[in-house]
């Protein structure tokens, strides 16, 4: 068993082996064996591309069910800014926060103010930073995993400032425990997530620390109930929640949303895991040294494009822009106090508690000589393949197939282009056997006679 947790599950009954997931997987972690998809756990970075690609919904994200709330005496919902993007300016964030309280949570806390705070903290960090550039945002857990697995040399460039969701959950637990006279573990903090990757960052944090969040509920699961709950929400009941709505943090769910709050000369926003891979390859080659900060999201357009959202990613991206515009006209404009943030920054409040370690893929062998020999064999096998990446063998590319022959259960004749050769070889063997037996039968009689003669002295 792999020591790495994943929150994707393939339901074999629904899978009919169409290989769509296998083709979109950015780390070549999926194989199709006996007509069913399988995940190679050490390669998976939980991006969720396969969930979106599967036409049968056979790959599901394991997020927490609603029933989890009953485990705690007091529960708080922390919606990702991606939740607001589902509604846009028609239903304002303060109303959504109020609606969540009608759903069974004891309280709901909007993250936008914390996001704004963290934007200031990132500014502080970048101002004094003089390590290798660019600094890479840690907001997307898949990107952090991708670096751990495929780009271990970039690990020191990951932003060490904790994410708003973790900081807010930590703060809320401490404050609420004091005010309500409860233990911290009796307070349940639930993130309303646009993607399954946040689930892993909660259950198995990349930095080997402990998450302050207790679970994650998918936006797509909560969307329906929330819509009906919103009908019963009176306007004056939520006006006070405006104090936690910060325009600065509202854009954190969309690609470019962090960059626009940083006031630095040269930053870059990338979204879509395949695009990120190209950019990270460039960083490893020493390019992009003049860029200070990279905001990278595994999902296209940012968290608004997560696999557990409801709205189309381009529409919700647009909704965030419109929402920010609308909020600018609202009366109350919450904004974090920069002096306060600076003070807390100096105290180390924003920094991640654990350290990020690389998690490189296992080499072909622990022994270098052996690994080199296996890599050479892999190259030799690859040369026998058609190099068209048809996928009929159940491996995503010819190169991956060559590796599966060396390291896993594939055999070269699983490649349909090598199958005729197998038949050819078999038929050659068969015809030569046939020839042999014919020629033998032709000379057999004299031999037999000879033998017979010898046998008869």
């Amino acid at each position, binding site marked *: 068993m792999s020591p790495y947790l994943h929150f994707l599950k393939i339901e074999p009954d629904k899978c009919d082996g169409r290989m769509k997931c296998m083709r979109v997987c950015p780390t070549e972690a999926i194989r199709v064996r006996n007509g069913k998809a399988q995940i190679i756990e050490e390669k998976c970075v939980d991006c969720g591309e396969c969930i979106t690609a599967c036409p049968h919904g056979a790959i599901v994200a394991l997020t927490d069910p609603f029933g989890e709330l009953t485990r705690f005496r007091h529960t708080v919902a922390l919606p990702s800014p991606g939740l607001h993007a589902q509604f846009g300016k028609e239903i304002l964030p303060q109303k959504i926060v109020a609606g969540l309280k009608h759903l069974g949570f004891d309280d709901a806390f909007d993250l936008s103010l914390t996001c704004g705070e963290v934007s200031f903290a990132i500014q502080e960090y970048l101002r004094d930073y003089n390590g290798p550039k660019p600094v890479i945002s840690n907001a997307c857990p898949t990107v952090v995993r991708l670096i751990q697995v495929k780009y271990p040399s970039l690990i020191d460039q990951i932003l060490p400032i904790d994410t708003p969701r973790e900081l807010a959950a930590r703060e809320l637990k401490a404050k609420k425990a004091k005010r309500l006279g409860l233990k911290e573990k009796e307070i349940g903090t639930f993130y309303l997530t646009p993607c399954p990757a946040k689930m892993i960052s909660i259950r198995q944090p990349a930095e080997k620390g402990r998450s302050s969040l207790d679970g994650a509920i998918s936006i797509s699961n909560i969307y329906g109930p929330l819509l009906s709950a919103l009908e019963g929400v009176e306007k004056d009941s939520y006006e006070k929640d405006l104090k936690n709505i910060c325009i600065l943090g509202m854009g954190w769910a969309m690609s470019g949303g962090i960059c626009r709050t940083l006031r630095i000369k040269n930053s870059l926003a990338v979204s879509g895991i395949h695009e990120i891979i190209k950019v990270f*390859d460039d960083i490893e080659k*020493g390019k992009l040294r003049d860029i200070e900060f990279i905001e990278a999201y595994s999902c296209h357009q940012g968290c608004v494009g997560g696999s557990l959202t409801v709205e189309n990613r381009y529409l919700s991206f647009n909704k965030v822009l419109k929402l920010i515009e609308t909020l600018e006209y609202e009366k109350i404009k919450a904004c974090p106090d920069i002096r306060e943030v600076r003070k807390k920054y100096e105290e180390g409040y924003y920094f991640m508690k654990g350290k990020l370690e690389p998690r490189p893929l296992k080499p072909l062998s622990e022994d*270098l000589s052996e690994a*080199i020999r296996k890599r050479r064999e892999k190259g030799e096998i690859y040369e026998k393949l058609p190099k068209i990446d048809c996928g009929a063998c159940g491996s995503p590319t010819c190169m991956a197939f060559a590796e599966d022959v060396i390291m896993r259960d594939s055999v070269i004749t699983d490649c349909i282009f090598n199958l005729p050769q197998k038949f050819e070889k078999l038929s050659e063997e068969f015809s030569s056997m046939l020839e042999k037996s014919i020629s033998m039968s032709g000379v057999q009689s004299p031999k037999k006679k000879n033998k017979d003669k010898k046998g008869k002295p």
Partner: protein
Amino acid sequence: MFCDDGLSQHFQIQGGDFSRAGRVSTTIKEILQEVGIDPAIIRRAAIASYEAEMNVVMYAQKADLTLKLTPEEITIRIEDQGPGIKNIDQAMQEGFSTATDQMREMGFGAGMGLPNINRNADVFWIGSIRGKGTVLIITFLLKKGGKA
């Protein structure tokens, strides 16, 4: 010709092909990752091979690149057919470049290519004949003695 515990792989680089530039160094990086080379060495090898690849794309007609990998060292040999280098000492200085304006607009030609290879390699050898081409041999030591 080659000892039993080694790997040798050939690549071709096409001069002027900016859209595919960098593919070879990415492949080299992947091979090194697969056999489990230290990430710090991989990064130096990726930077050096990328700079060398870009030199071919910018200045030469084409080149053959050979990657040789043994448990002791990584050797990257690039032999190009191109104009050659007039003055190697000058080309090894940081900031010296013969890049055209167009190349500079694309972000290349900062005059860091050869010095950058030299800085990242453990052993660097360069030879050039004007009008014929240039040969680079870049070596990274995997046992003690490397820059890691």
